[in-house]
């Protein structure tokens, strides 16, 4: 995996891209002037805020990332449908559970993305990541960490963990090459 | 609509005043905050109510009165500054005087028993 950016003046290219997009969205126009100022800002703001960014693994497989995003969007829709049904359905049929899932990921950013994904998708909310460690600059201690998940209606724990690992964690490892 | 809003303003005022009259700093702060909401709505309503009339030129034909809005904006900011100061002052008072009563001393009936934290 790679932590140091390719160009010092452009620490986070994808983020800058996102910012430019945001600017255009905000102004709702593709006029030249907005491209102009958007680019400037998209370059300046990351540069300003780069201090406020702990070193994180960078995206190595952008296309993979794109696919991941699309997949997650798809899952969200289905997940919401399922949850809606669960909510409206009778409650005694629900059997909630806490599930601990060992993480192969070790770095904060990927773990965060994973946790968020889990919270977005089928009847699960990621409750906690532990053992926790304060992300202070410098101490990037690598330890085995667990993800605690609350499941609204659990059929099979092993299967759930397996799905999450295969469907989300593995691609993330790919994307960040870690 | 006017009567509804007026009722809300009056009720907010009443609640704010009631909290303002409590003996501890924190409820007083909350009360003043709520009173500030009432004040802002009141000042705003002095320009009368308008639907779909944001005072942005060219977006509508009957504009809401922009002046009270500007006044309320100023009032909000000033109110924020004042509340902030009062909050910190409350902390200071707790630290200096050992309790959070607005008079800096617990009334007789409870000065005996320890203040609950």
């Amino acid at each position: 995996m790679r932590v140091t950016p390719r160009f010092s003046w452009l620490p986070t290219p994808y983020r800058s891209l996102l910012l430019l997009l945001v600017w255009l969205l905000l102004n709702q126009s593709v006029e030249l002037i907005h491209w102009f100022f958007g680019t400037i800002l998209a370059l300046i703001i990351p540069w300003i805020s780069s201090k406020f960014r702990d070193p994180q693994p960078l995206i190595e497989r952008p296309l993979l990332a794109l696919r991941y995003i699309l997949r997650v969007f798809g899952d969200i829709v289905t997940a919401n449908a399922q949850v809606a049904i669960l909510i409206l359905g009778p409650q005694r049929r629900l059997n909630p559970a806490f599930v601990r899932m060992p993480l192969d990921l070790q770095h904060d950013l990927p773990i965060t993305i994973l946790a968020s994904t889990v919270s977005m998708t089928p009847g699960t909310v990621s409750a906690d990541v532990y053992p926790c460690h304060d992300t202070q600059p410098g101490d990037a201690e690598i330890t085995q960490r667990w993800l605690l998940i609350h499941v609204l209606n659990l059929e099979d724990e092993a299967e759930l963990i397996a799905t999450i690992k295969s469907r989300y964690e593995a691609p993330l490892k790919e994307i960040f090459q870690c | 609509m006017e009567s509804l809003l007026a009722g809300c303003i009056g009720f907010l005022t009443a609640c704010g005043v009631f909290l303002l009259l409590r003996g501890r700093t924190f409820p007083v702060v909350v009360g003043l905050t709520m009173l500030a909401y009432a004040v802002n709505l009141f000042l705003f309503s002095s320009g009368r109510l308008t639907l779909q009339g944001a005072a942005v030129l060219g977006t509508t034909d009957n504009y809401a009165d922009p002046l009270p809005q500007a006044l309320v904006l100023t009032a909000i900011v000033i109110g924020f500054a004042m509340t902030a100061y009062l909050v910190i002052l409350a902390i200071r008072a707790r630290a200096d005087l050992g309790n959070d009563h607005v008079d800096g001393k617990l009334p007789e009936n409870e000065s005996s028993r320890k203040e609950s934290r």
Partner: protein
Amino acid sequence: MLENVIFLVFGMISLALLLNLWRLLVGPSIPDRILALDTMFINSIALIILYGLLMGSPLYFEAALLIAMLGFVSTVAVCKFLLRGDIIE
């Protein structure tokens, strides 16, 4: 036809808001109330967007955007407070 739909959705969201309010009032635990508040923030975004639709003016978008940002921050702050007491440490 669109107006009616909008009003229908208005009704749904109002109902949702009232349900949140119910949860906010009965609690029982503080996290429950915070959850209710957070939901309320998000639902009110929907409300404002609908206003925008109704008035056919995009002027209210920023309000929605701000609620999205600030609601998050305040939820986080309250949680931090309940977890650590000291939210800026």
